[in-house]
């Protein structure tokens, strides 16, 4: 069993605290993704799990053992780094065998394990090459192979794909998913790319400024973000936010609209409200109909879909994900309909109002 538990984990560099008490439980065999903007502490948290960074407060527990003072090599983890971190003076085989050789493992066992890992990752023909002679994707595969060979209880990945080009990233993403399905090992994966997070994770941990904002399955985060930050971070293009005003009886007005029925549990709220709607949920209708109206500023045509940036009459901009074939051009007037069931509402403190329908959530 290799579950991972973080209890009120804190990290200080000198006097500055960068991780402010993180509590998290990762179940055995789970694929958990840490996601958040740059500098939020993802790598630091991961390095504390690995034992590469001292824990300033709280406990890191792997299996049933408190690991705070245990050396990285004795934690049963393997880590894959963003920069691959291959030993440049060793060939692929040497890189993969290094840890085992160092641990004094039997030659036969090493050979068997290296070849098995090479087989899983399709590296059989590259075993004699030096890292310099490999492409980026191959290097990353070697780095992953090196982790597999160690047969860890937990895999740790720190942005392993961010040095690869877009096409390769998609391919490696699939390979990592298949690897997880095959090995069924606990994996903790750090990325700032929310698409990677959505596609890979069993559960996503959204971090901001050293705090967990929300933990949940990808669809939970998509449909029921706890606050405006998570709502804006998950989903691409990001959710549209419009200042809103309570209009009584569970309704609000926003951007010059009439009263809109909100699908949320009512809550006493005095301050400013924010209405949220994802670009893919906005519907385009004839001018004069719909919830609000505005003028097209820019049309980004991707072929299969078009992103229209629409300036509302109240000067707010709303991004609409429309069909690839829409004919609207800049300066055209359009009407926009906000389907009530797709709306999100946030209080003045950014906290979301609980949405009534727990739609599409895979529990």
């Amino acid at each position, binding site marked *: 069993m290799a579950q991972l538990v973080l209890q009120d984990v804190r990290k200080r560099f000198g006097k500055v605290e960068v991780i402010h008490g993180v509590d998290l439980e990762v179940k055995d065999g789970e694929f958990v993704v840490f996601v958040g903007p740059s500098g939020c502490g993802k790598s630091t948290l991961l390095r504390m799990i690995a*034992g590469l960074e001292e824990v300033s407060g709280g406990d890191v527990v792997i299996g049933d053992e408190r690991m705070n003072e245990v050396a*990285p*090599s004795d934690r049963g983890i393997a880590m894959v*780094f963003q920069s691959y*971190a291959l*030993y440049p003076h060793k060939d692929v085989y040497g890189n993969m065998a290094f840890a085992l050789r160092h641990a004094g493992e039997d030659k036969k066992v090493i050979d068997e394990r290296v070849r098995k890992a090479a087989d899983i990752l399709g590296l059989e023909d590259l075993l004699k090459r*030096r890292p310099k002679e490999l492409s980026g994707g191959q290097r990353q595969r070697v780095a992953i192979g090196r982790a597999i060979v160690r047969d860890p209880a937990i895999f740790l990945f720190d942005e392993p794909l961010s040095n690869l080009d877009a096409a390769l990233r998609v391919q490696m993403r699939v390979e990592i998913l298949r690897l997880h399905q095959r090995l069924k090992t606990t994996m903790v994966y750090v990325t700032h790319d929310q698409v990677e997070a959505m596609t890979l994770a069993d559960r996503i941990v959204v971090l901001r400024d050293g705090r967990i904002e929300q933990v949940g399955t990808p669809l939970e985060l998509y449909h029921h973000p706890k606050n405006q930050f998570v709502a804006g971070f998950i989903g691409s293009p990001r959710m549209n936010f419009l200042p809103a005003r309570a209009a009584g009886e569970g309704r609000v007005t926003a951007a010059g609209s009439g009263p809109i029925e909100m699908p949320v549990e009512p809550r006493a709220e005095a301050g400013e409200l924010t209405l949220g709607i994802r670009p893919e949920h906005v519907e385009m209708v004839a001018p004069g109909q719909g919830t609000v109206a505005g003028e097209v500023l820019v049309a980004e045509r991707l072929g299969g879909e078009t992103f229209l940036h629409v300036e509302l009459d109240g000067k707010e901009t709303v991004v609409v994900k429309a069909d690839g074939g829409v004919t609207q051009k800049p300066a055209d007037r359009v009407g926009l309909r906000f389907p009530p069931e797709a709306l999100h509402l946030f209080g003045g403190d950014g906290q979301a109002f609980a949405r009534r329908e727990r739609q599409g959530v895979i529990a």
Partner: protein
Amino acid sequence: MSTVDTTRARRGRMGRLGAAAGVHAVLLAYTIIAIFPVLIVVLNSFKNRRGIFTEPLALPRTETFSVEGYATVLTEGNFLLYYSNSLIVTVVSLFLILLFGAMAAHALSEYRFKLNALLGVYLILGIMVPIRLGTVAILQLMVDLSLVNTLISLILVYTAQGLPIAVFILTEFMRTLSRDIKDCARVDGLSEYRIFFEVVLPLVRPVLATVAVFSMIPIWNDLWFPLILASSDATKTVTLGVQQFIGQYTVNWSAVLASLSIAILPVLVLYAIFSRQLISGITAGAVKG
């Protein structure tokens, strides 16, 4: 339009060519100036005394050719001993400079500890203070330690002299090494010492070679400390040994030039070794080895 473009392009190319020629002319001139005296020394070492004085710039001819200088050097005096003294001092000092320099640099660049920056400044302060200023104190120290007239005294002094710049350069370079690869070795279970020897040292090999090359020359050429600390016959170095052919009234020029010519050899050999390291370090992995 296109003609203007091509002329401009041509002028650009000509300009670049001109600049390259200029650079090469300067380098060539410098090379000639630098090599000329060495060449004269080597040439004249193969002449007899008359040849050296009557036609110092000419190639050795049948009448002037002679290896009497080499004969004197190899038979008279303990030249081979001086030679091996110089080699021992240089090689051992170099080894210590590189080892301790690299270790200190690794510690300064890798570990966060109190006074790290201060220690760094202290270690490289020696670059600005010539070690010869401390000669009297060093001599006293060596006398107290009974190390006068031993090669160890020279090795200690040269190690101290070479360390600051070695630490400085290696620290700067090691700071640029990827942190990930050391962390990866930690996860793989290597001790800090093995990380240093098995991961860091191979990565800084080209820089080690560079440091070795320019730490080596001043040690090999030094006359000052051998004269002061180790002038006994058993511990003389080549530079000091040559002095025996320079008498108060007569100078055996053939012997002096011959010993100097021989003295160039090991430096060349060491340089060749290190510069190969340098190149193989730079291309490591790119070329199948």
